[in-house]
């Protein structure tokens, strides 16, 4: 019972309550239908709200990195700025371009945004807050997130613009390369945890010394760093933002897009950053588990903080790291980028995977 009281602000109380009411008052299919709709609406709104938070956060944090104030006119400290920007982008005219491959051109943004939404649904945000929980969760996340590259390639190809084309080709090379590293880094952890199910992975990491990054010590830390780098590269953000390198390719693959279509690319970019951070949090840093060290009083206090707060705290910390990197480093060149992946990260990753297997087979991990 103590455990019940220790989670007063968890959202699963709400979801369970809703579930009970629906089950009591509706036939099974009706309850399911309502639940599907509710989950869909909740995820979509969460998607938009998180994007707004991220955009605001990035602008503010970047401003502080660059000795500026950032948005500070709309609302106190400019907090309504990104809402205003969202409204602006929603009502902006979409400029229809003549010499493009119409179908592909207008389909491309949807690939990007749908891929990122599909991934978004599989993330365990907190205790009992996970919409899609497959047994092969990690596999699913990797698979659907890589759909977005199709959107980028289509955008570049269909735009009938040389800048876009070069941007898309760069993006293709980059994404395919770094997807390998990201997947291998996650596989390293799968070897350790013995499952691909995201909720099980989180459940395994109850105490800090159970967090995969601690439990798997050296190979896990290497995998964590490699995942962060390759994840950062997958999101096309500096220093890996070659596909849209504004000083060379104006805006890369989305040069020709305007209004909401551009908004989709923009939104997906921010959300992908968050998704990468979320997966890293879930897989390496204990997901929504609070910091628990096995001392009862301390654990109790930590438990009072709801799990989704822990999750977002950890994820935003990783996002902050990503911003820090982005706003410090200059951009890599395409050959340097591919060198980094194929000559350094991939071999390290492969050796690391073998090391992890040895660690697991001989039981060298922290039990």
């Amino acid at each position, binding site marked *: 019972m103590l455990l019940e009281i220790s989670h007063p602000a968890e959202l699963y109380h709400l979801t369970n309550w809703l579930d009970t009411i629906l089950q009591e008052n509706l036939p099974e299919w009706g309850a399911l239908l309502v639940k599907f709709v509710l989950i869909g609406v909740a995820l979509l709104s969460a998607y938009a709200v998180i994007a707004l938070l991220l955009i605001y956060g990035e602008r503010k944090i970047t401003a502080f990195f*660059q000795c500026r104030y950032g948005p500070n006119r709309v609302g106190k400290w400019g907090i309504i700025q990104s809402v205003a920007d969202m409204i602006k982008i929603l009502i902006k005219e979409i400029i229809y371009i003549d010499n493009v491959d119409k179908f592909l051109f207008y389909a491309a943004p949807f690939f990007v945004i749908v891929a990122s939404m599909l991934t978004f649904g599989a993330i365990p945000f907190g205790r009992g807050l996970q919409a899609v929980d497959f047994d092969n969760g990690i596999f699913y996340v990797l698979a659907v997130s890589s759909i977005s590259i199709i959107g980028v390639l289509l955008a570049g190809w269909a735009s009938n613009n040389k800048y876009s084309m*070069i941007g898309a080709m760069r993006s293709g090379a980059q994404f395919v390369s770094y997807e390998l590293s990201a997947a291998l880094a996650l596989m390293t952890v799968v070897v350790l945890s013995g499952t691909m199910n995201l909720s099980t992975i989180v459940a395994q990491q109850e105490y800090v010394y159970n967090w995969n990054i601690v439990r798997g010590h050296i190979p896990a830390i290497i995998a964590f760093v490699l995942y962060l780098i390759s994840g950062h590269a997958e999101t096309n953000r500096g220093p890996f933002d070659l596909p849209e*390198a504004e*000083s*060379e390719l104006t805006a890369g693959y989305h040069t020709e897009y305007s209004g909401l279509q551009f908004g989709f690319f923009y939104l997906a970019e921010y959300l992908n950053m968050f998704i990468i951070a979320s997966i890293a949090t879930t897989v390496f840093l204990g997901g929504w588990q609070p910091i628990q060290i096995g001392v009862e009083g301390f654990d109790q206090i930590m438990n009072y903080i709801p799990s989704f707060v822990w999750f977002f705290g950890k994820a935003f910390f990783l996002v902050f790291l990503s911003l820090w990197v982005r706003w410090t*480093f*200059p*951009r*890599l*060149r395409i050959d340097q980028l591919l060198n980094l992946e194929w000559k350094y990260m991939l071999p390290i990753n492969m050796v690391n995977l073998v090391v992890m297997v040895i660690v697991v087979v001989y039981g060298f991990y922290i039990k």
Partner: protein
Amino acid sequence: MEKIKDLILRTVPEAVFEEKKQLTVSVEPNKLHLLAETLYGNAELPFDYLVMMVGMDWGDTLGVIYLLSSSKDVSKEVVLKTATADRVNPLLYSVTDIWETAHLNEREVYGLLGIRFINNPDMRRFFLNSDWKGFPLRKDYDPDSALNPVSVESKEIVDVAPRIMETPQGLKEEKVNIFEEDDYIINIGPQHPSMHGVMHFRTALDGEIVKKIDIHSGYIHRGIEKLSESLAYPQILHFTDRLDYLSANINRHALCMCVEKAAEIEISERAQYIRVITDELNRIQSHLLAWAAMCNDLGSTTAFIYGFREREMILDIFEKTSGGRLIINYNVVGGVMFDIYDNFQKDVKAFIPVMREALKEYHRLFSGNVIALGRMRKIGMMSKEDAITYGVSGASGRASGWSCDIRKHVPYSIYDKVDFKEIIRDECDSYARYMVRLDEIEESLKIIEQLIDNIPAGEHLVKTKPIIKLPEGSYFQRVETGRGDFGVFIESRGDKTPYRIKFRSPSMVLVSAMPLICKGEKLADLIGIGGSMDYVIPDIDR
């Protein structure tokens, strides 16, 4: 210089010398190439640096003035003149095979004066469209706007260059294609986020690798040289600020000195000090912007803002001094417009330590960064020979190991009284160009430190006649701006307006070297190299 005179006479016995401070010699068009080659090949003092080419309309003849200098000693100057009486189809021999920098200059002369050059491999007009009617710098030019109406039609770019080649059968007019049939060409510019202005590079790409660059310029050509011909000297002054707007004050200093030299106006010591201090502040802000823009080109936005942060302090000082921030309109003939304000010295002295700290921060943030080094080391190699033949002076030239600082070699104003080091590096790459600028900021700070406490009392502006008329003759003044060797050439016929005025643009040579040093580099590095060369487009499109 007597030796040079002998050499010239031995090569071309009929050469005509003029009694001038500079060694000035006129030759027939058919002897010019021979003489140029001889001067170029003179082992003791090779005249391998073509400072500028001035196309001239002398009334009955059309011709070109070549100002030559030596890479070994940039203070040595020889002026060659040649002219043709044929005004319908004027032809001169090209010197592009001797000095690469002549290529764009000859195209400019063709565009503005209609002189075509035999053996120049690409005789398209520079600055002007190929269908422009008339040649603006000719004295009989018809400026009627009906002749050249403003068109709102989109024009296709034609990549075909006419040229006249000398063959054993005589002169042959021909047309060549700039690009190959199946080249993948992208337009970098005229509107491009990192072209530092409206420069247009037609770039042929092989994948990500730059195969060839074709330079198009003139999108903001304002005809300043033509406009100046109908304005009095004090009126022309404000144009100089609008050439290379980042070295506005230094450009203006050049024209002021040129006019003062010609009209024999002695300016006060106080004005000299103020001029040099503001020049050096101007140079620092120019280098800061160059640094910031280069970092931005390489993808580091944070560094961009950092550069602007310190630059702001200089602009504030300028604002308090003159009311202007970028284009400060401060130098005037006879001194400076206003005396310095009370706290000028205090503000400048407060700025110096801040700038020194900031330089350390820049090095920590960017200079040692492994990605930045990968993007700058061994990229955009420009050998010393290339730098000289293209006339690339300034920080970019010094990064190729060429000692070409005008402040040091041809000291003007009070630069001979101050102690500073000429920064020369020999890596020849983007990194060297980058480092030279940062190190020059430190040297400029040293110059300011030596002067700031010793500004002598006196008047800041000597009285000049209300209308300044320059005695007949040609006058030349070179200064070192943020980009390099900036020159002003004035030919006067004794009027209050110049007969011909010409500005030597240091940015034009920087751009003309781009096709050479970018060839074989990646597209991304084209931008980075452009940043490291630091050209300012209005300086080219005069």
